[in-house]
């Protein structure tokens, strides 16, 4: 039992000293529990007496006596190694499905960047330079360049949209907590559908872009900001406010998407801004326009039922 115990556990709690039963010459080391039922225990107690002096130095707390028992020590060591293994397994598997290090790039934001980006989403007309800065072949973190896509704003906007939708339904007395779940699932489904549709069309058009899936999700998530603005205005000022703000946000997101996607999809020609020639580039331009035009449509579709 002892060799197995010391082999199985690696991190031991240094504060709780283990007193091996065999050293005190007490009961049979293979006995799993103290047999207090018979006179055996008297002998146990008597033998303990003289070596009772050893106990105070071991530990002052009564729990140490419980943990001095090699079985529970082994169990604890096994349990902690199992937990460590489980955590490793979870980490490995999560890494397989969700590329955590790549995602970290998209969350390297700070308050200034978020403020500037939100301003850009509502008023993109004066911004001149839409190119993402590169640093030795890798794009610079969003913290340092306002043109870089990030996932913080889309994620927060999505969650806020679900909550604001719940709020809107609540003011119309149509709220129940499972409706929140329903709203969240349907918005997520629409987003997934959109991403898949665009990926499919990019594949069909055989365009070579450096537009990764995560980038695409980030860009498609920016429209939720406008949707939230529209719904909030609709709650405060009725249908007129809703249509005004939604109209403005639709225009802004259209311009924003065109200017951003142009650089990603129409890579070579767009940099100079010259009119593109050839069927391939025309196809890319149509694709960009289609993606940008889909945004306002989806913004309207996902919000009109919330504002009465």
């Amino acid at each position, binding site marked *: 039992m002892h060799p197995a115990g010391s082999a199985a556990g690696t991190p031991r709690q240094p504060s709780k000293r283990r007193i091996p039963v065999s050293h005190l010459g007490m009961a049979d080391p293979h006995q799993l529990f103290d047999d207090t039922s018979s006179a055996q225990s008297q002998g146990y107690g008597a033998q303990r007496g003289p070596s009772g002096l050893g106990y105070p130095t071991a530990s002052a707390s009564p729990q140490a006596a419980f943990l001095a028992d090699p079985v529970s020590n082994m169990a604890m060591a096994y349990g902690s190694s199992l937990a460590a293994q489980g955590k490793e397994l979870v980490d490995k598997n999560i890494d397989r499905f969700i590329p955590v290090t790549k995602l970290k790039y998209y*969350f390297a934001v*700070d308050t200034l960047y978020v403020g500037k980006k939100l301003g850009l989403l509502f008023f993109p007309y004066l911004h001149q330079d839409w190119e993402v800065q590169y640093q030795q072949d890798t794009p610079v973190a969003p913290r340092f360049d306002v043109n870089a896509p990030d996932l913080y704003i889309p994620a927060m906007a999505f*969650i806020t949209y679900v909550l604001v939708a719940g709020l809107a339904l609540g003011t119309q007395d149509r709220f129940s907590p499972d409706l929140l779940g329903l709203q969240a699932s349907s918005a997520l489904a629409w987003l997934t559908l959109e991403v898949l549709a665009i990926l499919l069309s990019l594949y069909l058009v055989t365009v070579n872009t450096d537009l990764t899936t995560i980038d695409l999700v980030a860009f498609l998530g920016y429209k939720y900001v406008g949707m939230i603005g529209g719904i909030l205005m609709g709650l405060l000022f009725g249908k007129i406010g809703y249509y005004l703000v939604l109209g403005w946000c639709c225009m802004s997101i259209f311009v924003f998407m065109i200017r951003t996607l142009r650089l990603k999809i129409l890579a070579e020609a767009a940099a100079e801004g010259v009119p593109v020639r050839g069927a391939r580039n025309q196809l890319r331009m149509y694709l960009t326009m289609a993606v940008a035009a889909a945004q306002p449509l989806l913004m309207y579709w996902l919000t009109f039922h919330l504002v009465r």
Partner: protein
Amino acid sequence: MFVWGESEGELGINFDHIWQKTLTVLNPLKPADGSIMNETDLAGPILFCVALGATLLLAGKVQFGYIYGMSGIGCLGIYALLNLMSSSGVSYGCVASVLGYCLLPMVILSGSAVFFSLQGMIGTVLALVIIVWCSLSASKIFISALDMEGQQLLVAYPCALLYGLFALLTVF
């Protein structure tokens, strides 16, 4: 023979630390010490959750299921976000502990709901103030413990969303 530990160390609950963390929460404007979150303890948060449930019960709303569900999912979300945003990772226990401690002002809100209804203008303003208070404290502790600069408002926003849900539960 087996005496239940009379000192706090026996039960593993350190009352002095709990009190210190509570004071940090109650004063959101004072900068926090980064080392207070080194030991994760859930005793304080569990106490505050139970207190919240109790005050809600006194006000006539039996919604323990929603409290547990929302806190679990909210903690998970903020755990994921903080792990992605900070350079050093954070454990789930630490996130749950901080969020639980910063729930204390919400207990005050639901306590006051027992005495007067919160559905008017005063209730809304009070709820907003409490939400801001909770999220500022939580983000302050997270920022100092995880050493993130320039991101306090970014961390405060999702915390505000979570506490807003709790406030909704309390007010409606």
